[in-house]
């Protein structure tokens, strides 16, 4: 069978990408971009004039070959058939990130802030490019259907997410990984075992078949659909039981992806707290990443925390599958096969986690950036160029507003800045950032302090590039995964599994929220 579809689709995608690049690069989009920026600096100018150019050329060239060339069966044909779908996802991610999400932000800001929350509705609901990308994917598959030429490529979204997690390994410091790893093992250990046990207990109370209880407990307890897929054959789940479980989990997962960021915003949770809560409380692993990026779309601190929890969950998966296999064999007299421990562990082991560990190990050698760069920011006040030092005018503005500062440590740090015209130490930088956030000196002074902060805090180039790639890989992956969430599978939620799932899911979300707020500190 020849998989590559002969047609103009990929070529047209290339033309659209190049058109975006041309319109942006030539300044023809300047007016619209100014409108999207809403009085601020448009964040994606650099991306807009580079990414569509590179990918547009690739899509145009391969698209022309796919359209006019001849294709034969083989490995290359199969790989080639995935390109159109991959570019289709990428184009949607581009449109959503650069135009649709900023447009929604503009509309939301024109509506004013919501009540006394002090937040615009798009911030409160987390309506950013990640969530909107997933929603667009869901709309495409359910309303228009994924075009046949794109179907093979849509599966590449999994590869995108796994590659994103592997690259994420470069951004952790050893201390971060130790602290987050320890926290996630405790939280995941408690909540996974707790929710698996609770589902099995509720299942036996409600007299659901063992196969149903087994598959539902894996889905509710570990990592949603992924755990259901892994556990269903082991507990010999019936087809309708699989449908009920996956339907229940998908509805919960998609719902949580919208609700968690709203609650996080209302509670004013820190990135670490939200990442830990999403990583524990959201059933489905794809929506954990979605919610983390929804909560912090322009940074990856939340994603870093949430993904450590996701990785811990997927590492626990083989153990839970093994537990359920043994549990099922003991309860079902008709099953005579014994459980092959080694085979279960080996078959279910998530190989991509090894890639994550390898990238982390490489980053600790300093291959990507010096040690102090791992968090993505480092402090250096030795080579501050004269252009980045405070000007006389800026110093006088700060002096004029210095009287508004009350705290002694902030006063002292500000005085040292005014004398040296640059921030002299990490401590002063942290203190002055507190002063910026307190907004006591007025808008103009705030801008000058931010300039002083940026003059000494940098992001290493390689780390910056990794962050950019990671953001795009997750955006790409999540749009593609959205295209695999069908309403017909969500509609299967129902019956006793929906009741058990509802009780366990809600208990896990509420308890983990309480634990996170009470026990998890705001920083790592």
């Amino acid at each position, binding site marked *: 069978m020849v998989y590559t579809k002969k047609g103009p689709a990929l070529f047209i995608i290339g033309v659209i990408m190049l058109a975006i690049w041309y319109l942006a690069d030539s300044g023809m989009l300047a007016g619209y971009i100014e409108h999207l920026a809403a009085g601020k600096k448009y964040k994606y100018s650099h991306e807009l004039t580079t990414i569509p150019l590179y990918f547009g050329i690739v899509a145009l060239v391969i698209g022309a070959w796919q359209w006019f060339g001849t294709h034969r069966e083989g490995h290359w044909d199969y790989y080639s058939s995935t390109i159109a779908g991959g570019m289709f996802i990428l184009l949607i991610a581009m449109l959503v990130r650069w135009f649709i999400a900023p447009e929604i932000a503009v509309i939301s800001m024109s509506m004013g802030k919501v009540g006394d929350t002090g937040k615009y509705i798009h911030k409160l609901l987390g309506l950013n490019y990640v969530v909107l990308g997933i929603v667009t994917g869901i709309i495409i598959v359910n309303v228009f259907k994924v075009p046949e030429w794109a179907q093979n490529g849509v599966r590449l979204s999994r590869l995108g997410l796994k590659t994103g997690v592997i690259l994420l390994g470069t951004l952790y410091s050893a201390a971060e990984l130790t602290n987050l790893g320890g926290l996630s093992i405790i939280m995941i250990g408690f909540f996974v075992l707790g929710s698996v046990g609770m589902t099995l207990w509720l299942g036996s109370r409600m007299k659901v078949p063992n196969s149903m209880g087994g598959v539902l407990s894996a889905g509710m307890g570990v990592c949603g659909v992924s755990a259901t897929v892994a556990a269903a054959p082991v507990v010999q789940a019936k087809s309708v039981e699989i449908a009920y479980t996956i339907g229940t989990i998908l509805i919960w997962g998609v719902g949580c992806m919208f609700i968690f960021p709203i609650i996080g915003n209302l509670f004013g949770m820190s990135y670490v707290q939200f990442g830990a809560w999403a990583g524990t409380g959201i059933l489905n692993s*794809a929506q954990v990443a979605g919610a983390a990026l929804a909560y912090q779309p322009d940074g990856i601190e939340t994603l870093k925390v949430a993904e450590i929890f996701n990785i811990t969950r997927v590492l626990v*998966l083989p153990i839970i599958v093994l537990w359920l296999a043994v549990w099922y064999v003991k309860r079902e007299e008709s099953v005579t096969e014994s459980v092959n421990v080694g085979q279960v562990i080996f*078959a*279910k082991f998530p190989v991509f986690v090894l890639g994550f560990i390898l990238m982390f190990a490489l980053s600790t050698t300093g291959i990507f950036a010096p040690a102090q760069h791992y968090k993505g920011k480092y402090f250096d006040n030795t080579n501050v160029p004269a252009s980045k030092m405070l000007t006389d005018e800026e110093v006088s503005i700060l002096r004029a507003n210095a009287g508004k500062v009350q705290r002694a440590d902030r006063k002292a740090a500000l005085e040292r800045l005014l004398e040296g015209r640059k921030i002299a130490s990490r401590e002063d930088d942290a203190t002055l950032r507190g002063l910026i956030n307190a907004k006591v000196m007025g808008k103009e002074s705030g801008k000058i302090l931010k300039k002083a902060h940026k003059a000494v805090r940098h992001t290493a180039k390689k780390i910056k590039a990794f962050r950019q790639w990671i953001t795009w890989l997750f955006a790409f992956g999540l749009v593609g995964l959205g295209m695999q969430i069908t309403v*017909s*599978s969500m509609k299967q939620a129902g019956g006793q599994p929906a009741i058990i799932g509802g009780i366990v899911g809600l208990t896990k979300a509420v308890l983990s929220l309480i634990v996170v707020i009470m026990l998890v500190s705001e920083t790592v």
Partner: protein
Amino acid sequence: MMSANNVLLASHGTEGAVAAENVALQMCGKGARLHQLIVVPTLWQGMTGDDWLNNGSTRDTFRRYLESEIGREIDEYCQRVSDEAEQNEIEYSRVIIVGEPEACLLEVSQNDDFDLVIMGSPRPRGKKGLRSRMPTEPLARSLRIPLLIVPYPDE
């Protein structure tokens, strides 16, 4: 009871479908032909959902398992009807198609000279089974042969 010589039976093992099977077997006289259509809904294609953590072999194992499980269930339904048909000297045949139930039924109904199409009524709320309802009204309008919808056993 009415009789028919060439019946298309749309069934997939639910209680409503079993009721339709029983009526179809009663309506077919000796030597009549009963053609059973079983549709595997396309919703199964989306049943790996947004799983991305598993490796390819785990997903393949799941797909193979799901296929064999659905296949086993279909074999059970068909065997039951086939046994009954044999006892009543009814010529039995079957076709299994992956697709949308309504479209598949319309297509198969046009492939042969059927006298009658028999199917169960939509599953009442709260009854166990897949949510893959076939809209009966547009179907009845599109079919060119009589359609008999057998009431659900509990109703």
